[in-house]
């Protein structure tokens, strides 16, 4: 099936934009609503977050700390994540 070149180009452009938006989208998952101080501390560590679109999700299972999702990348700074790492480390030792 032959597709019109113009339509093809437009589709590629549209998909590229979607991917870019997805990459720029940042999701913060924490156990409580993060305050300005918390966000500032976060921006000090990852300055690029300052200009990004932030979406904050409250999840009690995190206990404390924060999980940062940037596109497909996940940075786990939560207490539950630390506990999981500890569990895996102990399993590896055994």
């Amino acid at each position: 099936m032959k597709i019109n070149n113009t339509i093809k180009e437009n589709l590629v452009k549209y998909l590229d934009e979607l991917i870019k938006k997805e990459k720029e989208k940042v999701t913060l998952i924490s156990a409580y609503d993060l305050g300005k101080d918390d966000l500032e501390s976060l921006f000090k560590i990852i300055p690029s977050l300052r200009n990004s679109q932030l979406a904050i999700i409250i999840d009690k299972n995190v206990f404390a700390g924060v999980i940062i999702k940037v596109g497909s990348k996940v940075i786990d700074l939560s207490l539950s994540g630390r506990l999981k790492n500890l569990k895996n480390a102990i399993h590896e030792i055994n």
Partner: protein
Amino acid sequence: MDQLGIDIKQIIAQMINFVLFFVIFKKFIAVPFSKFIDEEKEKEKETNAALARVKMDEEHLISKQVQLKEEIKKELEEAMKEAKKEAAALKNELMIEAKNEAEEIKKKGKSQVEDEREKLNQLIKERMVDLSVAIVNKAFKNYLDEETKKNITKYILDNLAKDVVYEN
């Protein structure tokens, strides 16, 4: 002579009769008869000889039979001895084989038990870890208040976050 009752003509006739009879008897009866008797005697001799031979053969055969029986008995006894020896040897061999097999099975069993024990220990350790983590999770859920959560978050962001971010 007539007065005595002796008839010479009759006597002569009788004598001639007797001589004739004698000649005829000798020629036609006595000789074949004696031949026949001789033949019969010969036959009897041969029969007796054959009988004697048969008897000898029979005795010979009987003695051979006895000898063969003795030989068979001896061979049988020897075969029995051999068989008993072989059976004893086989029995020993089987006993040794059975012992070795039993030892092997015992060893295998022991090592299996050890492996199982190791696996069980490992499993128990893993379960203990899982249980401990679950208890800690539960404790965090129930006992962490908002203030403590904020303090922990601040601590993580101030102290630990840099290492994690750089690693990633």
